């Protein structure tokens, strides 16, 4: 039933048209690279080390003080320079008195809980007005992840010390690249399919196409394949710019492939769905924006979500894009494949639901 030849033919004519449209090309490929260049330039460079006050209330256990190890590791990153604050100070008051926008607090039971695998939180103080807060919290979150991983692997304390020396230093650009890849995975297929599906419906182009042997499934597959190709091209471009222009550390692994396929498939289907259920292109555009914009900023694209207040983090977890950016971060930054598998599973389910809905509701003909 589904003909590969017709998919190819439709893919080809769509690609040629897309490449002639400089607007689409700009937003598909050039714009994300510009974002990387701008954000990379702002947050990178030799002068970029941020001084952060840190208070270690950890009393240690079994002769170890993992709170100290944690701060030492942070201090060895190129991003953060730790300024230790006496444990007897009231930390929030101290930060206020020193007009500091960032601070890190290690609680007293840190080592004990860490070793007995009980939940323990490092508190990162930040200010929404500060441009450094995102970087600090992103970096700390990276190290928290790293320390958790050490425990997960069972290497515990010993592995900790030796690994700290070898660990790659995580910078903001390392977080930014997966985020912006997620951003372009969302925006290009989504905006494009909202627009195409509502305009084609209005202009009766779907009716026109239904008079050819092309089926709606073939048409949709051709669009999805195109946006997967565009996503891969954008991915290579962004990683290339990040690595060569800013020396970003990126782990490339086959586990990225599911995200580069599921992402465009999900957002092309979602765009299709919005264009299908709305009456005209104007409404479709508005609904499309309502769906897209919160995801653009809240799903861990420009800022790690852990700098956001709790309720926003909850919202982030219901945004499909979150599982793309988190998954990309898990693979590219933390090399945490078990967590990435969870993201792939969640993403797969959301994608399946949206795709089936879009195909079911999308009609070539009218009754």
């Amino acid at each position, binding site marked *: 039933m589904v003909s590969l*030849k*017709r998919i190819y*033919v*439709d893919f080809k*004519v*769509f690609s*040629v*048209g*897309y490449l*002639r*449209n400089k607007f689409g090309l700009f937003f598909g490929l050039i714009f994300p690279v510009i974002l990387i260049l701008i954000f990379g330039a702002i947050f990178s460079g030799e002068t970029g080390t941020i001084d952060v006050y840190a208070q270690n209330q950890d009393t240690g256990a079994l002769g170890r003080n993992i709170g100290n190890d944690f701060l030492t590791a942070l201090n060895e990153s190129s991003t953060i320079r730790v300024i230790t604050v006496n444990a007897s100070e009231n930390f929030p008051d101290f930060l206020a008195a020193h007009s500091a926008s960032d601070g890190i607090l290690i609680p007293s039971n840190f080592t004990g809980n860490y070793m007995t695998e009980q939940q323990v939180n490092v508190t990162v103080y930040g200010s929404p007005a500060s441009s450094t807060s995102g970087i600090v919290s992103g970096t700390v979150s990276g190290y928290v992840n790293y320390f958790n991983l050490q425990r997960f692997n069972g290497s515990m304390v010993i592995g900790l010390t030796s690994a700290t020396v070898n660990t790659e230093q995580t910078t903001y650009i390392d977080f930014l690249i997966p985020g912006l890849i997620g951003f372009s995975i969302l925006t290009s297929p989504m905006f494009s399919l909202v627009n195409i599906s509502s305009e084609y419906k209005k*202009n*009766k*182009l779907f*009716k*026109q196409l*239904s*008079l*050819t*042997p*092309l089926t709606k499934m073939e048409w949709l597959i051709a669009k999805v394949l195109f946006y997967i190709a565009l996503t891969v091209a954008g991915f290579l471009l962004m990683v290339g710019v990040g690595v060569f222009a800013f020396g970003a550390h990126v782990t490339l692994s086959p586990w990225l492939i599911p995200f580069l396929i599921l992402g465009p498939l999900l957002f092309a289907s979602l765009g299709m769905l919005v264009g299908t259920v709305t009456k005209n292109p104007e409404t479709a555009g508005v609904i499309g924006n309502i769906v897209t914009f919160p995801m653009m900023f809240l799903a861990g694209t420009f800022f790690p979500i852990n700098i956001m207040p709790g309720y926003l983090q909850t919202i982030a977890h219901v945004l499909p894009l979150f599982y793309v950016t988190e998954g990309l971060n898990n693979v590219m930054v933390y090399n945490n494949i078990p967590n990435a598998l969870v993201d792939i599973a969640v993403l797969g389910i959301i994608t399946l639901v949206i795709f089936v809905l879009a195909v079911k509701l999308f009609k070539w*003909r*009218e*009754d």
Partner: protein
Amino acid sequence: MFSIEVTNLKKSYGSLKAVDGISFTVKQGEVFGLLGPNGAGKTTTIEIMEGLRERDSGDVKILGLDPWKDGYELHKKIGVIPQEFTFFEKTTPKEAIKYYASLFNIKVDSNAILREVLLDEMEMHVFESLSGGQKQKTGLALSLVNSPELLFLDEPTTGLDPNARRAIWEVIRRLKAKGKTIILTTHYLDEAQQLSDRVAIMDHGHIVAMGTTEEIIQQHGSGERLEIHGTQQLADYINANTELQGKYDKTKEVISIPLKKKIDMLAALAAAEQSGMGWGEIQTRQDSLDDVFIKLINEPLDEQGEVEIEQKPNKKGRR
């Protein structure tokens, strides 16, 4: 051999009966015009025949196929230009033809098709840069890719300037000469008259007249009549002194006398002369398709011969 057989076709949108029990047949090689004001049900009818819309009831056989159930088969055999044809903005006519040919899995001479629709000089321009007439010609070109025996042209010249309209007519005449069966909807009377072998006039979902334009004029027109410029008194005098029954139009100051025989004209003129009253210019007249159309539809025409009526609710329902 009929290419199209429609029997008692009905289609409603909610409470609105867009097509209310129409029947007609179209012979192979015929050009059949569907005429009527906006909202008469033309597009609904044509879309049901094309298999783009499901009917409520009635029988429709297009080239022997049920258009809704056998749409996929039917679409290989027919060519269609929908109303206000559009295509991918950044695709050229030549690429569009090749695209269609690949989808239909056939080899075509795209240059020959472009020449056939008089578009060969624009083959390398992307669709969005074409004029209205060139866009319609692209639509015509695409409808020809699968060498269809039956063509549906839904208002192919609406919104085009007179030159572009004539160019499209020229293309349609060539297709007719090649023996294609063509269904044409239009709300331009001259277009229907110029191109169609037979027309059906639709109004509010019904066919109110059908046949060749001559037949329709004969059936529904008032026949030949004599018009004399004069007064009410003269009209009364003629009616009293002959067997004729003239009608007086006060605004035009014209006495209009139906002529059953040619000789009636002499009697009328003799009576007028006898009356001693003054009378002005005389002429004989016959209803045109426009006159019949207005009589049947009961809606005014604008100067272009296009029916001016308010947007009916089914215009919305069709979307």
